[in-house]
């Protein structure tokens, strides 16, 4: 009886998960303050999430990505500046990074022109003032789901 077996399997897996859970260190507690998504012209398919992430734990936590029903992917990225050697200002470069680290009892500031979580492949234009559900995924902490306002700033 396959049904019985799969029920048993689920029970076994659940039991082993429960048994394993206390062995692992409790996940660090992460707090996200003032998150916001940038409004962009409707023609643009990518935007970014900004805000401050606090790590209240004793170990470093890494922001590794996220998900939202509003877009295809959430990718940690960083905008950096390289000297261009000319009056045209520094070269602004954009790079994917595998993670953005939040030090123990420290903070990660996501802001325009710096570190941010890029929201790629929007399924529709964001409307100024609406709120969007975004789940942030961490290495070293549980995921955090937020209601994030869309701000024209």
């Amino acid at each position, binding site marked *: 009886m396959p049904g019985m077996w799969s029920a048993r399997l689920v029970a076994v897996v659940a039991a082993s998960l429960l048994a394993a859970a206390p062995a692992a260190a409790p996940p660090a507690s992460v707090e996200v303050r003032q998150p916001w998504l940038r409004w962009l012209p409707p023609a643009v398919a990518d935007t*970014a999430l900004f805000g401050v992430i606090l790590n209240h734990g004793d170990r470093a936590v890494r922001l590794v990505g996220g998900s939202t029903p509003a877009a295809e992917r959430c990718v940690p990225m960083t905008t950096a500046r390289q000297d261009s050697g000319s009056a045209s200002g520094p070269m602004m470069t954009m790079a994917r990074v595998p993670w953005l680290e939040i030090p123990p009892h420290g903070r990660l500031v996501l802001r325009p*022109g710096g570190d941010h979580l890029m929201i790629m492949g929007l399924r529709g234009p964001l409307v100024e003032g609406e709120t969007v559900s975004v789940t942030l995924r961490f290495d070293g902490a549980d995921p955090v789901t937020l209601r994030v306002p869309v701000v024209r700033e």
Partner: protein
Amino acid sequence: MRRVPAGVVWAGVALAVAVAAYLVAGVVRQRPYRYASEPLHDRETAADFTLQSASGPVSLSDFDGDVVLLFFGYTHCPDVCPTEMMRLAQIHRRLPGQDRERVHVLMVTVDPERDTPALMASYAQAFDPSFIGLSGTPAQIADVAGAFYVSYERAGQTRPDRYFVNHTSAAYVLNTERQLALIYGYDQLAAEQAHVARDLSHLLRGRDEPAGRTRAGRPEGGVPAAPAPAGGRSVPADGLPWRGAGS
């Protein structure tokens, strides 16, 4: 009543006249205007260019007599360009009404393969309805960017149509004579908006021309020019005081 000696009276009058003259001189001799950004002393007349807007060709010389804020970016730019366009819109809104119509914000794409004139128009106008988005052939864009020493290069390409364009981020200000007068950095546009707006209004008035001063008074150039004295602006023999002062 004791009479005041005539000498004392005259001394008082002389002192009053001297104080008045000093005050008048102080008002007449304008304080040097301080720009938010170090003004360019060798103001070069920017070469004219023509690119495509959604409603037809636009030339830089179309705006001669007004002030132009020129920015290079691209619509798929997820962070730097929207930040800068947002700042430019905020600065533009700070201008007094009559100046607003004479300060033109032009965004030139550094991604002509993806940014059509129509896309540039909808992008630029979403930040401010008066903003003008421009595109062109890759060769035309390279020419215009090169004239302003703008660097740009593709990066992080994952699919033929999915990539970033790293690019320099300065915004360029052309004065009423189409001379490159000021360059603002990314941070200045965020932190000094009121000052930048005053700069643009100041340039519209057409006063304070360090290039002419540099040329007339300091032929070697490159030295920060003193402000032009009131009413005492020297005009070179060719009668075109501020043209062609570039090195």
